[in-house]
């Protein structure tokens, strides 16, 4: 059955935006100030207070089934690896050698019975304990028993593996809220990671934009009919349902049943069929998931894409995509996936066009902040409310920007 939480109209925010300004008797919810998308002090706070405290998607359990299988991910500034131990335990730990700080592992894959640093061959057990270092007699005081890769929290929900470097952070289940039963309901754990012909399990793309520009864009559908007309033909947005807590949300929208006039869209419509293991109630639906801070999921009946943003600089963001498919996907599912990928290439190009414009616009001295639509941009409102709670620098920037605006208008 569907997740126990009652599906609500996603147009109804469940939390009151906490930054509002009176305007002629009405109450407006304003976006972050433009300078928040470039400020170097805020960027440092974001790394420490958002990313290094959040649960970050690292991979899928199918990639970590056997001892020595691993995935890697950056959690803010901390490179992290997750590896299955010989004892069957899943562990998350620093991916930084304790000797001269080289990264130990890259991407995803399978180690031998130990993990070896590619720099000087310091060698670690799969639980992070240093096993040996070459020329060990040359170290004046190396106590191998005292050298261990710092351990972090790891959690698995719906087959997705998350890591968190903050021991004081809430549980993964609490952060996911209604998303956890949604992922279980969709049988995400029964899928496997799709690999390209050359064996790659992740696709990355770098954007010369602040990470929040991209996240804001993903979080709202207000722009969809303007920027992505093909989606207007494919799905019936007004019938969207969903649920959320303060940190995460899921939604789903029905495909239109009548054929599009576009040949490619029409071919795609004819191929839509849910994967084995997906609930019958999901037949004919497309889903979305947003997990704090920057894990997003596109849930199609034939496959699932995860899309994760990592800040690599104030104005540089890396997006990593992982595709989950049914282990026995047939030609029909593969063709549907290919067509959706083609459509998504178009959609991504349209989003890049938009977000590039926004990145330029937020740097304009004349721009302070914008009024948000309480219904169609409520996820942006909620997202930015969390940022305001966690990042005191935003209040400073807003005060400065508001003061400058007052002076300019006086």
């Amino acid at each position: 059955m569907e997740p126990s939480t009652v599906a609500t109209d996603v147009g109804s925010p469940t939390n009151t935006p906490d930054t509002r300004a009176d305007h002629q008797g009405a109450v407006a919810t304003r976006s972050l100030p433009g300078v928040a998308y470039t400020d170097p002090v805020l960027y440092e706070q974001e790394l420490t207070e958002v990313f290094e405290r959040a649960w970050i998607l690292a991979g899928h359990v199918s990639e970590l089934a056997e001892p020595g299988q691993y995935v890697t991910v950056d959690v803010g500034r901390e490179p992290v690896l997750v590896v299955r131990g010989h004892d069957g335990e899943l562990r998350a730990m620093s991916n930084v050698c304790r000797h001269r700080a080289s990264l130990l592992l890259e991407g995803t894959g399978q180690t031998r019975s130990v993990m070896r640093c590619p720099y000087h061959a310091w060698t670690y057990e799969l639980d992070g304990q240093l096993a040996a270092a070459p020329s060990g007699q040359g170290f004046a005081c190396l106590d191998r028993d005292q050298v261990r890769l710092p351990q972090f929290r790891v959690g698995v929900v719906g087959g997705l593996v998350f890591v968190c470097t903050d021991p004081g952070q809430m549980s993964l289940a609490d952060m996911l809220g209604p998303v956890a039963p949604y992922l279980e309901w969709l049988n995400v754990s029964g899928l496997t990671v799709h690999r390209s012909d050359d064996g790659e399990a992740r696709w990355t793309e770098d954007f010369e934009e602040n990470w929040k520009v991209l996240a804001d864009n993903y979080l709202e559908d207000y722009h969809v009919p303007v920027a992505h007309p093909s989606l207007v033909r494919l799905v019936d947005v007004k019938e969207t349902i969903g649920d959320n807590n303060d940190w995460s949300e899921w939604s789903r929208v029905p495909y239109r049943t009548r054929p599009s006039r576009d040949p490619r869209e029409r071919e795609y419509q004819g191929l839509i069929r849910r994967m084995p293991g997906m609930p019958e109630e999901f037949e004919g639906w497309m889903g979305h998931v947003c997990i704090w801070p920057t894990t997003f999921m596109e849930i199609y009946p034939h496959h699932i894409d995860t899309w994760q943003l990592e800040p690599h600089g104030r104005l540089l963001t890396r997006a990593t995509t992982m595709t989950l498919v049914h282990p026995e996907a047939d030609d029909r599912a593969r063709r549907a996936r290919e067509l959706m990928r083609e459509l998504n290439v178009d959609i991504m190009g349209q989003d890049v066009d938009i977000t590039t414009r926004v990145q330029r616009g937020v740097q304009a001295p004349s721009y302070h902040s914008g009024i948000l639509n309480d219904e169609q941009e409520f996820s942006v409102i909620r997202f930015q409310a969390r940022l305001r709670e966690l990042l005191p620098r935003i209040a400073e920037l807003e005060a400065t920007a508001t003061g400058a605006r007052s002076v300019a208008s006086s």
Partner: protein
Amino acid sequence: MPRPDASHPDGWLFLPPEVEALVPRLLARLAETGGGSPDEVERDLRDRIETLILEGDAEQWRSFLREVTAMVAEYAGEDAEARRVLASVLDDQFLLVRAVLDLEPPDLEARGRLAQAGATPPSSSRV
């Protein structure tokens, strides 16, 4: 693929969502108090809007707006709130459609009728 601009054949598809969400239901309310069958009105309008989205173009959309405007303008029932919201949504449509089409005399007439319906006072600042 770049974002479709106003000249793109799909450039008008930013218009339907609000209409698709609101107009059939509200017009059904008018039909109910006006003696028609609200379910039929709502279903027919949903089908027509979906057909326009899937097969239509900006000109056909504008024709639809004019037609629906007439239904609102001719309504003589008691549901002033539904009429007010409909008039507001439709008037916004005429203002928005200018991004893809120039308004023509029948569109200006339609706006006038919406204003007369008592819902959308003419505002020179918005034209």
